């Protein structure tokens, strides 16, 4: 088991290295391959009416004239060991993990990311709890009451849930519950939990429900399909043949087998959301990682985009790692040597 975990951790680190190289290639190698000059790249970061001297300064400052491999080495070293930057007149020490400084406000990227993380985590955690409970229980009931009006109603709502985009359900819920009925505060009212827990909760209710609706619909469909498949398995028949009560057959035998794959998907989904719930955060103006990256893309803020990309990749790789290890614990057939 220890060897298995060590192997997986090494694989995860390698995966992150590959992701960093790919990300770097997308932002630096491809433009250069398409004929972009170092000056051309630098000119985007020095304002509209930049003088050639200013552009040259940016090229020097950002080391855009170095060979790409050296640039990547500096990028990777910054993440692992930190990097010293010379920002115009002053020198700045950027400790690891260093993703450089925002072009827009000269703030270091990493602390900004950490600053945005609580909002994203609050959103993802609350929504995840909601959708896991709602989605899985609706899926189970639907499967057990297959073909009834209840099942059909649940699956119709679920189909709507997976089909409607978040910026639609989010805006409709805002318009109805915040601006018409006034039950919940509107967008852009997010407050940190340490500042005011009540305001934090109120501001997140609608985003939670909006995000959870989409995922709950997905999970209800997944759980229903998994449950129906499991209930047809031979070992369920065996459990009944032993004389077990139907309730025990469902909870002990069927659920155990149905929920194991759901757990995997759940881990990956939460990992994905921790890298930024872009649509939900934008719709409700929640200052999370997703909102940060959207603003950075609009503002051509390359270091921030790079930072968020690596940050999101880190969570996905981490979620994968946890899920892999958890799976080996839950499914005895995956005991690996």
């Amino acid at each position, binding site marked *: 088991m220890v060897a298995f975990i060590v192997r997986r951790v090494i694989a995860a680190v390698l995966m992150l290295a590959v992701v960093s190289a790919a990300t770097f290639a997308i932002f630096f190698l491809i433009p250069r391959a398409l004929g972009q000059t170092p000056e051309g790249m630098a000119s985007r970061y020095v304002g509209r009416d930049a003088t050639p001297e200013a552009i040259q300064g940016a090229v020097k400052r950002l080391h855009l004239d170095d060979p790409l491999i050296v640039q990547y080495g500096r990028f990777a070293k910054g993440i692992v060991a930190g990097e010293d930057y010379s920002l115009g007149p002053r020198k700045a020490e950027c400790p690891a993990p260093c993703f450089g400084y925002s072009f827009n406000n000269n703030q270091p990227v990493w602390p900004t990311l950490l600053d945005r993380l609580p909002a994203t985590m609050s959103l993802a955690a609350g929504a995840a709890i909601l959708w896991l409970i709602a989605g899985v229980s609706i899926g189970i009931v639907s499967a057990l009451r297959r073909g009834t009006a209840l099942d059909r109603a649940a699956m119709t709502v679920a189909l709507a849930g997976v089909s409607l985009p978040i910026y639609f359900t989010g805006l409709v819920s805002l318009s109805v519950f915040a601006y018409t009925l006034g039950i919940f505060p509107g967008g852009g009212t997010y407050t940190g939990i340490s500042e005011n827990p009540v305001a934090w909760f109120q501001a997140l209710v609608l985003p939670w429900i909006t995000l959870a609706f989409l995922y709950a619909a997905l999970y209800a469909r997944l759980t229903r399909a998994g449950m129906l498949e499991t209930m047809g*398995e*031979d*070992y369920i*028949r*065996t*459990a*009944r*043949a*032993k*004389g*077990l*009560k139907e309730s025990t057959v469902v909870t002990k*035998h069927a659920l*155990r*087998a149905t929920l*194991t794959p759901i757990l995997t998907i759940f881990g990956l989904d939460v990992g994905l959301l921790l890298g930024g719930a872009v649509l939900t955060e934008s719709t409700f103006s929640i200052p999370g990682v997703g909102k940060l990256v959207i603003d950075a893309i609009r503002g051509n803020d390359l270091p921030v985009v790079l930072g968020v990309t690596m940050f999101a990749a880190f969570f996905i790789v981490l979620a994968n790692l946890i899920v892999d290890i958890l799976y080996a614990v*839950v*499914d*005895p*057939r995956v005991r690996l040597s």
Partner: protein
Amino acid sequence: MTTAPGSSAPDSFLELRDLRIHFPTEDGVVKSVDGLSFKLDRGKTLGIVGESGSGKSVTSLGILGLHKGGRAKISGEIWLDGEELVGASVDHVRTLRGKKMAMIFQDPLSSMHPYYTVGAQIIEAYRIHHKVSKQVARKHAIDMLGRVGIPQPDKRVDSYPHEFSGGMRQRAMIAMALSCDPELLIADEPTTALDVTVQAQILDLMLDLQREFNSALIVITHDLGVVAELSDDILVMYGGRCVEYGSAEDIFYRPEHPYTWGLLGSMPRLDREPTDRLMPIKGSPPSLINVPSGCAFNPRCAYEGRTGGKATTEVPQLAETEGGHLVRCHMPPAERRAIWENEIKPMLEST
């Protein structure tokens, strides 16, 4: 469902009377079991043979009451030790399941829960019907695993099904089924998924255990070799009905139904020349939604022409030829016996 007036508890340990299990589907009613009757005493073994889809497994699940409360329409009577089960409540039949009657399933890998240890599954089966502590149940599980011939049962009790070989899994399955000393044991294709060498061991084991527990045993299979080994009586099923019933000797030495002849002719035998062809039954089993009119076997029967047209118009009755040997065929008994003696038997024995 109430018991028909005048019917009373039979003397036999198990008796089926006109059991019908029908499944309504969008395409029509699937008559998986359509009027099946037989008796079985304690300590005796009944072999039920037939092709896939002849209703063998549905019958066994029906006896266990596993179709109750579902979409199936069940009628007729199942008497087990003086109790009628078709009319009994779902809950009552559940309390008998696993304790009074138990089942060994085909393919033990898919029939055991992959996430629980073999021991846990036996312990669970035992503790449903016995209010004992986990420790006591575990001792019992180890004991059962030892009795079915699993080496180091105190260690293997904590293994998962996928860590067992096919034969060991089937032994564990048997240990699970026998954990509550069932008086009726139904084995559905118990050896189909196993190697031939392991098959013989498992059959031996089942016979030994049956003697030890004096239980009634039903063996469901399409393998005539298996029933020859185990059975006192044999019931041949076709299209949800019994077409021939008799002692093992009747079926192997004096078979009278053309379908039974076909089954015997399809059996590979070592005492025949390798160059000899098997004599398969032509065609495929009937759809249980549109069972052929008249005799269900008539489209595949070589002797259909000898019934004077009755084969396609009239359902033959299951009638006794002699000494409890029942045959469902339009041909007169004398003619069937003559065909067996003069045509089929010499062909099966010709080498």
